[in-house]
């Protein structure tokens, strides 16, 4: 009972997250400006971290968790660098 219930919920959640990533990718391609693309990239990143956590529940392994942590860490650094680049045109001054 609980296995079937969880299996369906996990599948549905994965599909929803994939659709969310699709929306973010469309915005990434549409733009129109650089800040829209950076925002879409951040959304894509968070959705990917959530997808990894759902994968972790599906497989019952906690290794996906570390990947999710790494994605959020790298995503933050990338966002800060990109925001800085948009402001000054240089990443390191």
């Amino acid at each position: 009972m609980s296995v079937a219930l969880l299996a369906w919920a996990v599948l549905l959640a994965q599909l929803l997250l994939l659709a969310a990533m699709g929306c973010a990718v469309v915005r990434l391609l549409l733009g129109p400006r650089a800040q829209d693309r950076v925002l879409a990239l951040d959304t894509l990143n968070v959705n990917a971290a959530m997808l990894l956590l759902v994968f972790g529940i599906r497989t019952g392994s906690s290794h996906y968790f570390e990947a999710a942590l790494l994605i959020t860490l790298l995503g933050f650094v990338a966002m800060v660098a990109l925001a800085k680049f948009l402001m000054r045109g240089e990443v390191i001054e």
Partner: protein
Amino acid sequence: MTHAADLPVWAALVVALLLLLGAGLALVGSFGLLRLPGFYERVHAPTLGTTLGIGSVLAASMLFFSLLQTRFVLHEILIAVFMVVTTPVALMLLARAALYRDRVERSGAVPPPPGSR
């Protein structure tokens, strides 16, 4: 999903609902990114996923692993704390950068810089 066979039905139900809530919020946020016009309105959309969205997925993950391994799993709290601290900072920086660019290019209706009022 055979590893979840020991999970009680109530817990499976709660985990399933939390997962669907989180994924649904992420989808609505990303959809808002597509639908809302203008950058400053779009900034608000992903916050859905980064607050309650990832929060409920993390809660589902914590409940799931805590009950299966019969020990309390604290890992997820790290991601939660990290997200709470970093996403506002990143969004603020991005909004400031966008405002700066709009002021330099004098495009759209953005408020003037503080010194010139």
